[in-house]
């Protein structure tokens, strides 16, 4: 990999991490309330879902971990870092696997991501609280993940459609 390509890659990842953080900030300013405590739209996941379809998986994982650390530092606390990290990594793994199978469209991949994100957080919450009663939340979180994942999926599709024409020339290899 040439130096210019490397520079391009670093710059691109920086832009996407910044985009994630702006989305997280928007959600802090304007919370999208679904009526269940702790449930949010997860606009930052939009960047991750779109990223999965444009960039190598390792790069997207790095973007995801970076934005989780940075947003927790800015808007959260030690506990929220643990929750975000568990949800973020699990949903990334599930989305990557489902995408690789090729059985699902972007909506399905995003829904699986939303649901697994909530499940990862729930599992960590149960571990931290040492209280299994928190699993009474499970049904609500499954449906919430379905809805938020679906919304993110729809938006991702529109975004990919808009940037798709540049995918080969602009995004993947800096200067072709």
């Amino acid at each position, binding site marked *: 990999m040439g130096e210019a390509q490397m520079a391009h890659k670093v710059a691109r990842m920086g832009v996407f991490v910044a985009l994630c953080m702006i989305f997280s900030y928007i959600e802090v300013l304007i919370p999208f309330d679904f009526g269940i405590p702790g449930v949010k739209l997860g606009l930052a996941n939009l960047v991750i879902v779109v990223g999965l379809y444009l960039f190598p998986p390792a790069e997207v994982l790095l973007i995801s971990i970076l934005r989780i650390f940075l947003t927790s530092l800015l808007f959260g606390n030690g506990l929220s870092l643990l929750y975000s990290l568990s949800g973020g990594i699990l949903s990334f793994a599930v989305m990557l696997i489902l995408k690789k199978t090729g059985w*699902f469209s972007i909506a399905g991949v995003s829904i699986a991501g939303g649901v697994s994100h909530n499940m990862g957080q729930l599992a960590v*919450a149960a571990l931290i609280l*040492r209280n299994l009663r*928190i699993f009474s939340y499970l*049904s609500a979180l*499954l*449906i919430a*993940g*379905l809805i938020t994942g679906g919304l993110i999926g729809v938006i991702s599709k529109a975004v990919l459609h808009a940037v798709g024409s540049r995918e080969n020339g602009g995004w993947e290899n800096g200067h072709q």
Partner: protein
Amino acid sequence: MKRTDIALIVVIIILAGAYYVFFGRHTTGDEVLITLDGEEYGTYPLAENQGILVESPDGYNLVCILDGEVFVADADCRDKYCMRQGKTSEPQKCLICLPHKLVVEVRSDRRGGESDIDMVAQ
């Protein structure tokens, strides 16, 4: 949307529904704590149907646990107010018989569990 996407959505909804039917609605306490005159009389699992006859110098109360709910079925106190308080299964709710200094409360198996959840949800 592919057909597999629809299948995924249906599976998630079925999972959520099934979990709700089997486990989700059980957002109740786990055990019944009976206190008599400020002292712990005993704890009893809420899942087990049973009748507990609580006898005190002032009289008796028959506390019944039936199908996950607890109520006072019979008492020889003056006002019978304990019986009129009905059935409960929710934590932090109590049935109280003032004349006999009896408190029947439902709680979860871990004290302070509720407040922990509240803390994290902030």
